[in-house]
């Protein structure tokens, strides 16, 4: 079995600030991490590798320093890494990103599974995974909170997809793309031996010329999304905790909700 995990390097959220003048992210001095939800995708790939045997590859499109994120994935136990980096990829929205990733993955075929995190903490769109599956012409299951079974003989996967009011059990044929939510597992720490291997591992770098495809479809020029503006949402006010006897609290709560016309 071959599993590909797509990850993104993102700024550590707690520290992200928005420049009040330009409305862009202030990235300097902010440490970069693997998008937290992608670490669950890595963990899931490792668990199925340990269960069924698999070769695992982690893939990222990003600036050259995204290599650090790939090395971290390797230090957790992923076998191989591949970085897509090229000036022409810069400024890509979810559509162009998915397009670029899909070209690389076509070259990596055959594969059985692609794992992505549900969404990235910087963009929060949750679109790249499903869009990537569309570009590849394979089925996808988003918001996976549990993989019940992978049957390599029948080439199928059964997964639980998290819904607002419960979950769905879905069967899909392989190859398929799954985006995972944090309920799926608990990501492991890197190991020392993994770190040592990661330090030495050669990570190939592919640019636009290696991928082929339409140059106009990469990066900013390939992105239908136009960003009109970015702003920081007003900080959420502190919540209030009611104390006292339960019946009294309940009564107060109902009165407050009524007063605010919520109920």
């Amino acid at each position, binding site marked *: 079995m071959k599993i590909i995990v797509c990850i993104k390097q993102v700024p550590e959220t707690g520290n992200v600030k928005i420049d009040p003048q330009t409305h862009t992210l202030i990235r300097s001095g902010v440490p970069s991490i693997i998008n937290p939800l992608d670490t669950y995708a890595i963990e899931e790939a490792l668990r199925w590798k340990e269960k069924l045997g698999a070769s695992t590859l982690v893939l990222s499109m990003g600036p050259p320093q995204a290599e650090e994120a790939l090395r971290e994935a390797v230090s957790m136990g992923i076998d191989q890494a591949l970085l897509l980096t090229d000036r022409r990829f810069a400024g890509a929205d979810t559509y162009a990103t998915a397009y670029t990733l899909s070209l690389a993955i076509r070259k990596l075929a055959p594969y059985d599974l692609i794992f992505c995190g549900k969404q990235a903490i910087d963009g929060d769109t949750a679109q790249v995974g499903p869009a990537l599956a569309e570009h590849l012409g394979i089925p996808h299951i988003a918001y996976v909170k549990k993989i019940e079974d992978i049957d390599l003989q029948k080439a199928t996967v059964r997964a639980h997809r998290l819904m607002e009011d419960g979950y769905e059990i879905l069967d899909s044929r392989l190859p398929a793309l799954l985006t995972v939510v944090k309920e799926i597992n608990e990501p*492991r*720490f*890197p*190991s*020392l*031996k*993994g*770190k*040592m291997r990661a*330090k030495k591992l050669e990570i190939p770098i592919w640019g636009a010329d290696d991928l082929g495809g339409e140059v106009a479809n990469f990066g900013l020029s390939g992105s239908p999304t136009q960003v009109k503006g970015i702003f920081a949402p007003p900080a959420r006010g502190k919540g209030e905790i009611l104390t006292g006897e339960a019946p009294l609290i309940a009564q107060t709560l109902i009165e407050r909700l009524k007063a605010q016309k919520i109920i």
Partner: protein
Amino acid sequence: MDYFLTEEQIMIRDLARKIAQEKILPVRAELDEREEFPWPIIQCLAEADLFGVYLPEEYGGCGGGCFELCLAVEELSRVCGGVAVSYAASALGAFPILLFGNAQQKERYLPEIAQGKKLAAFALTEANAGSDAGGIQTTARLEGDEYVLNGTKQWITNGGEAHIYTVIAMTDRSKGSRGASAFIVEKGTPGFSFGKKEKKMGIRSSATRELVFTDCRIPKENLLAKEGMGFMVAMKTLDNSRPGIGAQAVGIAQGALDEALDYARERVQFGKPISSFQAIQHMMADMATQIEAARALTYAAARYIDSGAKDVSKVSAMAKVFASDVAMNVTTQAVQILGGYGYMREYPVEKMMRDAKITQIYEGTNQIQRNVIALSLIKERAQKR
């Protein structure tokens, strides 16, 4: 201070720090309160390969030594001395095998210890034999292909939780301290059971327990080194492990200073943060200076041991004595800086003070360490004449 760590040593330190921050910090107070052995954390340290940092690569370790062990112990201790000793005691149990085991014994036991699949423990102390280890009464009698062990070991760290025990027992009482031998005993061996689990002042998440041997039969092959070498094995083991206690002490002290500093900058009295009072500033300056000195001595001792030097007893004892006295002093001062809050369980420094105390006692009390240092001094001087 820059101790010129290699890239690999930095990895060990950072990984231990990350696990301490993310896994241990959130649960340390609860582990202390409930006196609960930290299995999930042990599991996590095992998966991160930290149990093998001091073991050779051929046995599944990472090829480091005493110094690498100290780096990991220090980071874990900075957050919780109790978890740290559970980790370190496995190394204490493994050292006799590493230093004196034959090829088969190393092959059989070290890989599982390196992977953290099994914990080890070291058993010397008995009810009537503490500092005076020569007074141990546990016996091992050779019968055919087996040794038969009888007796009770007391206060064994990782007792009950560990799988692999190195046990010192008398094979020939008539020879006094030359009549002791070291054995490997596995959990589950018939005749080997566990007694009382102690309730302690500090390091409460660690397990301290009695080992009871009643006609416990072990294969002859489980003898380490030769008959009669038991005390040698024990003393060399402790020489190697004492800088680890130094590192534990340095870590606990550093953790306490970190807390005191944060608190002093926040706590306002007389209209100013207490960190602006010179009395507090000088306390913190002394704490930091002592910690750095203790760290430097501990690292130097560990590196000296790793260099392959033979005369390590003195420096090893110095590191342990100095760092543990520093830890007791610094944690006491930290409680003082936090005032009444420092005395409360809601804040972590009272635990650090309780945890620090043990470092002056186990692996040889500080009085015994001073005996060792003084005897070495006198011997060295005499040899020069």
